């Protein structure tokens, strides 16, 4: 083993940092809210490609404003020729309105467009999707809580859940801060983050438990540090390989996967951080000792 790093010296300061991060994220979520995409807000999304380089966002917006679509947002999407148009449309039941939009754009800006993607989500479906997304995240947190409870003791379970909670809240907080879009794939990313962060925490906890049996005279404050150090190279290597994979999705996987991979990158970063600086201090705080483990063996 190489030199031991004194992770435990910074428990207090990073506890404060984590606390502030969570507080800030909650404030952001409460007051700024999340930028929900059509999946969760309902409405229409059109991705189109133009072959005419002179067309600007303003052209498109002006053309679309001639039809009464309400608040239309037009953005560049990835390459210079791709645009993303979004609006909330109320009279959803006219099956032809996408065609009307197509005709409008073509008649005012010329036939140089290709509709690459159209998504149209009714208000009922979007609220259901939002509900099932929230349930899915809640369910996964509960499942993890129960799993750790079965495998370890409640102190560990609490530590792991606090870490997960932190990762999910802070990731969503960052999405709120930068007004990044929340869609179905972000929910998938958050669930994967939950799995990943748990994975990281469990590996350290596994070592803590083993060391509790091995060194019965060492206090938990020092013991967590030993365990973190012993698993450190694994923690770093796994985070690194996962990040390598995620960065390659982020840079080469196309626009659609950008949000997903960005959320995952944040999640891997915070997941690794929280396994060390949230999960372990909680074990210290709850004064986990060899007795905690022995009690289990007797049962």
């Amino acid at each position, binding site marked *: *083993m190489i030199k031991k790093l004194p992770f435990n010296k910074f428990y207090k300061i990073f506890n404060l940092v984590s606390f502030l991060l969570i507080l800030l994220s909650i404030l952001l979520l409460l007051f700024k809210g999340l930028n929900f995409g059509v999946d969760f807000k309902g409405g229409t999304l059109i991705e189109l*490609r133009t072959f005419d380089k002179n067309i600007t966002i303003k052209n498109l917006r002006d053309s679309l404003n001639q039809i009464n679509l309400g608040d239309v947002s037009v953005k560049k999407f990835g390459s210079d020729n791709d645009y993303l148009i979004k609006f909330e449309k109320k009279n*959803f*039941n006219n*099956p*032809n309105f996408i065609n009307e939009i197509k005709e409008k754009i073509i008649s005012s800006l010329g036939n140089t467009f*290709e*509709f*690459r*993607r159209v*998504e*149209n*989500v009714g208000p*009922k*479906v979007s609220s259901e*999707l939002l509900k*099932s*997304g929230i*349930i*899915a995240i809640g*369910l*996964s947190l509960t*499942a*993890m809580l129960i*799993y750790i409870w079965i*495998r370890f003791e409640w102190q560990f379970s609490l530590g792991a859940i606090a870490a997960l909670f932190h990762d999910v809240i802070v990731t969503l907080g960052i999405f709120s801060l930068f007004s990044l879009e929340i869609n*179905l794939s972000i*929910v*998938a990313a958050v*669930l*994967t983050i*939950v*799995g*990943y962060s*748990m*994975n990281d925490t*469990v*590996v350290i906890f*596994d*070592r803590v438990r083993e060391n509790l049996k091995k060194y019965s005279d060492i206090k938990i404050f020092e013991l967590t540090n030993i365990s973190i150090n012993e698993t450190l190279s*694994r923690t770093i*290597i*796994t985070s*690194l*390989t*996962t990040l*390598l*994979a*995620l*960065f*390659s*999705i982020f840079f*080469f*996987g*196309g626009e*659609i*996967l950008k949000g*997903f*991979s960005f959320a*995952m990158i944040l999640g891997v970063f915070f997941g690794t951080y929280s396994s060390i600086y949230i999960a372990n201090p909680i074990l210290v705080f709850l004064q986990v000792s060899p007795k905690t483990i022995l009690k289990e063996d007797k049962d």
Partner: protein
Amino acid sequence: MLYFSKIRIFLITSFTLLFVCIFLSNFTKSDNFIFNKKINLGLDLQGGSYLLLEINNRPVITQKLQNSIPTFKKFFKEKNINLKNFKILDDNFLLFEANEDKISIIQEILEDKEDNFINEYYPRFKSHKFDFLVEQNLFKLNFSKYGLIEIKKSSQNQALETIRRRVDEIGTNEPNILKRGNDRIVVELPGLDDPSRIKNLLGKTANLTFRFIIKGSEETFGSEILEFEDGSEEALVSKRIILSGDNLLDANPSMDTQSNETVVNFSLDRVGAKRFGKATSTGIGKRLAIVLDEKIISAPVIQDAIVTGSGQISGDFTFQSATDLALLLRSGALPAPLNIIEERTVGPDLGQDSINSGVIALAIGFFLVICFMVLKYRIFGLIANITLILNLFLLVGILTLFEATLTLPGIAGIILTVGMAVDANVLIFERIKEEIVGEKNLLVAFDSGYEKSKTAVLDANITTLLAAIILFIMGSGPIKGFSVTLGVGIFTTLFSVYFIARLLTSIYVTRNKNKEKLI
């Protein structure tokens, strides 16, 4: 942990080879190859349209209540009970009154659980078809929760059949039509990049009736005012139905040679032909309205009795609209109107672009991870990499075997699996390094390295699996694809780490057990 029997080695090798073959079958063109299975591409990768339709069951419920009025009347009359003042309230309640002295008998009949003809009992749900309330001599019935479910299910089944016929008529490529819940239907149309025609066709109930236009109140059946399709005029139409869409055998668009108009020709079944003949022979000079979804398409004046059982609908059609009308008539009416509540369409170009960028990202991610592992662990990195490649083959092989659907998030799941799959090997290798410190015998050190890291590896993978399972249950469409690859990836990872990598490690370590600094 390092010992493998010959049978085990054989099993591991053949299992791996099998899935490598299945994996490779994705790239063979011929169907003669033993493994002719191919992975399915999701709509987001091959392009196509996804529509979620919701059945509006309100009219069906009202109709069912309406239909039950004569049944109730007749049923109780046979038992010498007179019911009166039938009424339908809020499209939801059926009201009727009875004499005070009969109330308890009616109640008994309605609550009967054995062979209840009038208020069917579902023993499975411990519920009747109708729930009811009695206020003095007034009965108030409404469909119970399960009664409603039965209605919804049956209208969903009918709608599914009609939708299937309509979609098949258009001739799209391998459509996928599925029920969801009890009032929704999913329609997936691969390769279709403009679903507007199909949306138009599915948006029509296509309830066709032939009814006389009448003057004043000459009709005992009742009448209603209906608009013409083009909005030009209104007419008073009898509620008596001469013919309905059910009587149609066939319908086709054609060109009328005399008027040079596009028309729809139809032919009737025997019952329909008889009724049509009778109505047209007694109604010469009257106007017969052809009503589709409460709008009059046309109302020709009857010139002659038509007994051939075939006829013609004219009415300002283009060839396209005549074709669509004929198609709707052939495929039959929907039991209730449908609303399109979700639509996702991906053009084929975007699909191909997504595949390309997904494959590039996979290749680059794979390359980076492989390089990293070799740099970090040398020969064991190589073992981990061979395992990783085989893991990828196994993963895609299993997806192919089950003909699973690969989506763009699914590809992301594969790339993520590549990144996380090395975790198990890293855990083991790091543990072995620790074990070597205090252990002279390399074989023992490797063995206990594998043994002691087992719980951590299992725990770590089970947690990810839990997340994948929840995603699979809760997620929809492309996200489901992600959860499938992530979940299957965990199993292939565990297999490849504990069988393939361990086998390779054991071979290498046994041969070099006297070397210093093996890992």
